């Protein structure tokens, strides 16, 4: 049983923000009205965190993309009263929009604030409705959503693999962000598979995870050189 994980190499990442756009496009994420955005209700599944370290003029700006970390020991799934968010055997944290009652407990419980909520009914002009990604269902008002590691792609990749009776290749199943990262900073693959790039990278000396002390065991691993 594979265990999907993402490795983000911050030494390579320039912080161009392409992953955000790719994600929004791939997953039909609603674009809230300017007023809503002003109230802090923007919906990014992939967000960009910026940290400023040091004193002027020797500032180090650390910028890193933040998807859902798909923790191995997720705090969010435990608290969901209706099993709308859960961890499947491949380690993906699923979010079932049609079961969610919108109590937002999972958002509160997530230490990484990886989840976003549909405060209003998501709306698009009819023209944009043409270019929805047919593989991803639209969310409705009042449900929580989050990065799914583009699980809809996995469905198809699995089908391809099964139909010609083979394992899923390394780099065959990639989320939109890692696929179009101009810096090749985002690697994605199977942690169980000893040959996969992700497995080897996750064992590099530069590897670390956000807030390991919480014991959530994120499956998004950052690589950065320690000074």
């Amino acid at each position, binding site marked *: 049983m594979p265990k999907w994980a993402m490795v983000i190499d911050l030494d390579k990442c320039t912080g161009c923000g392409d992953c955000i756009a790719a994600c929004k496009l791939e997953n039909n994420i609603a674009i809230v009205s300017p007023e809503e955005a002003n109230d802090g209700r923007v919906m990014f599944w992939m967000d960009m965190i910026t940290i400023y370290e040091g004193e002027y003029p020797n500032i180090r700006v650390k910028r890193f993309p933040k998807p859902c970390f798909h923790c191995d020991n997720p705090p969010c799934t435990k608290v969901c009263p209706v099993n709308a968010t859960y961890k499947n055997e491949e380690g993906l944290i699923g979010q*079932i929009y049609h079961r969610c009652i919108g109590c937002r407990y999972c958002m509160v419980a997530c230490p990484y604030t990886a989840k976003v909520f549909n405060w209003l009914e998501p709306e698009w002009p009819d023209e944009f409705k043409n270019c929805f990604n047919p593989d991803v*269902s639209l969310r409705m008002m009042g449900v929580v959503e989050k990065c799914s590691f583009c699980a809809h792609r996995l469905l198809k990749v699995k089908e391809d693999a099964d*139909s010609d009776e083979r394992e899923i290749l390394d780099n065959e199943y990639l989320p939109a962000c890692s696929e179009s990262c101009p810096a090749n900073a985002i690697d994605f693959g199977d942690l169980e598979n000893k040959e996969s790039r992700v497995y080897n990278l996750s064992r590099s000396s530069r590897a670390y995870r956000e807030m390991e002390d919480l014991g959530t065991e994120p499956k998004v691993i950052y690589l950065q050189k320690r000074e």
Partner: protein
Amino acid sequence: MRKFIKHNFRLFVIASSAIFVLMIVWTVFGTRHTIVQPIEYNHKIHVEEADLICIDCHLSVETMSSAMIPNIEICQECHSDEPFTDSPEEIKLLKYIEEEEHIPWQKIYSVPDHVYFSHRRHVSIGDLECSNCHGNVEELESPAPYPSWEPTMDNCIDCHKQYKVTFDCLSCHR
């Protein structure tokens, strides 16, 4: 009896009207409404006389998620100019073909957009017979008026239980 009715007439009226209403409700909601297709397509003939198999017309059933409902482009490969039979339905079809307008087939099996159902997965990978879900279509002399098997989540789950395949939400929901 009459005495009884006379005595508590009110109760009688209430009861009878209630029953009446119930009957109305029954007739309206009880029967599942049927779907009428533009052409009374006869599977039986095509399977037995023209000995076709499902995939001959439902081309993508083994290769893609949707099985594809054949339309004139495919029909006209056989029904080119003069009719084989004298059935009025075939005349209709030929009319569609020569006017090059698509046959407005009605979909009777459908899943909501937050469900990913793949024929490829079920037919070519899962080795299921079409009849498992669609009933024995070969015997149908006229198109099925309603699904022989409702594609609801419960039904899916039952079958998945029976075949011991995944229940993972993400394997169907997207």
